[in-house]
């Protein structure tokens, strides 16, 4: 396959960036999107140019490091992570636009790499349990209803990649925060901090400069792990409940 890539190039956070056009040849349909970028970078290095910086780690779709907006879609045209997207999703001769996550809370570090530590600080605000943990506990010690366990697992799937923020026209982090809140709030292990968790995480989310939610649903459409849109409503319910309890 022969492709034309239009890639966002930016030296660092302080200098303005722009889209640069590159031609790549010899791309196999079985390559992953990141392998295609590796091919481009090998080319650039041979030519003595600066390779394109992009985040990646496990390349198995489970770590949440990769983060590219491909033709306007976070993680590209398929509902998966960029590393699990294969070149067979494109056709020979295609022009592909590659941009970084765009959000005030995710400043560009270099090229396609953005700083997502805002998410870490949201987690630090309450995305944990204070109970001492050790070896796996005896399964019957703390019974969890099946529906709650399913819900917790569904939300625990969030890998914190930030596609929700990138896809949201408002740069809102509601889906991410709701996944983390709901994951722990439905479980008995998470109930001691049930109220402070949702209040503190939402406050931190707001402080980080993420936008407000207008329920466009773009986040849930982009999420590679399928965190559903009603999770946001569930977090709003938790938040309203916590406000009543803490105030009352």
């Amino acid at each position, binding site marked *: 396959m022969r492709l034309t890539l239009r890639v966002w190039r930016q030296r660092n956070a302080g200098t303005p960036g722009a889209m640069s056009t590159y031609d790549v040849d010899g791309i196999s349909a079985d390559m992953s999107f990141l392998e295609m970028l590796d091919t481009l970078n090998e080319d650039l290095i041979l030519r003595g140019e600066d390779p394109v910086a992009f985040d990646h780690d496990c390349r198995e779709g489970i770590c949440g490091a990769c983060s590219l907006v491909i033709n306007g879609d976070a993680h590209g045209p398929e509902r998966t992570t960029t590393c699990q997207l294969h070149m067979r999703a494109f056709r020979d001769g295609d022009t592909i636009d590659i941009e970084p996550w765009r959000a005030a809370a995710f400043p560009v570090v270099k090229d396609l790499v953005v700083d997502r530590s805002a998410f870490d600080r949201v987690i630090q605000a309450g995305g944990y349990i204070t109970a001492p943990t050790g070896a796996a506990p005896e399964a019957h010690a703390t019974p969890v209803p099946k529906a709650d366990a399913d819900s917790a697992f569904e939300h625990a799937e969030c890998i914190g990649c930030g596609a929700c923020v990138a896809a949201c026209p*408002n740069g809102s982090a509601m889906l991410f925060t709701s996944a983390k809140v709901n994951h722990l709030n439905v479980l008995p292990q998470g109930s001691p901090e049930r109220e402070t968790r949702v209040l503190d995480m939402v406050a931190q989310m707001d402080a980080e400069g993420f936008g407000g939610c207008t*329920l466009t649903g773009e986040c849930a459409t982009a999420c590679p792990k399928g965190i559903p*849109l009603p999770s946001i409503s569930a977090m709003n319910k938790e938040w309203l409940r916590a406000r009543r309890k803490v105030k009352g």
Partner: protein
Amino acid sequence: MAVSGLLMLGYLVAHVAGNLKVFFGPEEFNAYGHWLRVMGAPVLHHEWALWLVRIVLLAAVVAHAVSAYQLSRRDLKARPTAYVHRRKGASYATRTMRWGGIILALFIVWHVLDLTTGTVHPGGFEEGRPYQNVVDTFSTWYGNVIYIVAMLAVGLHVRHGFWSAAQTLGIGSARRERLLRGAANGLALALTAGFVSVPVAVMTGVVS
């Protein structure tokens, strides 16, 4: 946004029901208009109930506009650099909430000046004869255009707004998703169809 929006939506439902009385002829419609002024009598003085409704509505409109402004400012600030490759996302109703809201605000101003105060009313505005006033307004081409466009905007606004309000208030869930979407679409359709039926009736001579 959710609470003020639902307040106004409740009013719209009552408003459209009242409007449909126009199909029962001038006596009944004018009598209904009169009743609105003596609502709550004899406990309440003349027009007290009406003014109470107006005050609550005004507060809701102001609260809705102020929160929309704050939310929009925050949202625009959170995405300082736009994507080069833009794609159309979300539904038409979702994408037009801001402009739709502005259109509706302008419409409300015209609507009050036209049929409540009579300031910009075409023909002789007569208080206490709403039936004739309605016919006069919808006998002009621009009255019909402004009104019908605004009512389509109401439908779109309610379609996204009602469902969103439910999510904001924490009522949404995977199980209730179909119910809430259905209710939002049903409400939007009923309101738009109900409101638009009046100018259409005047145009076709059913109401004259």
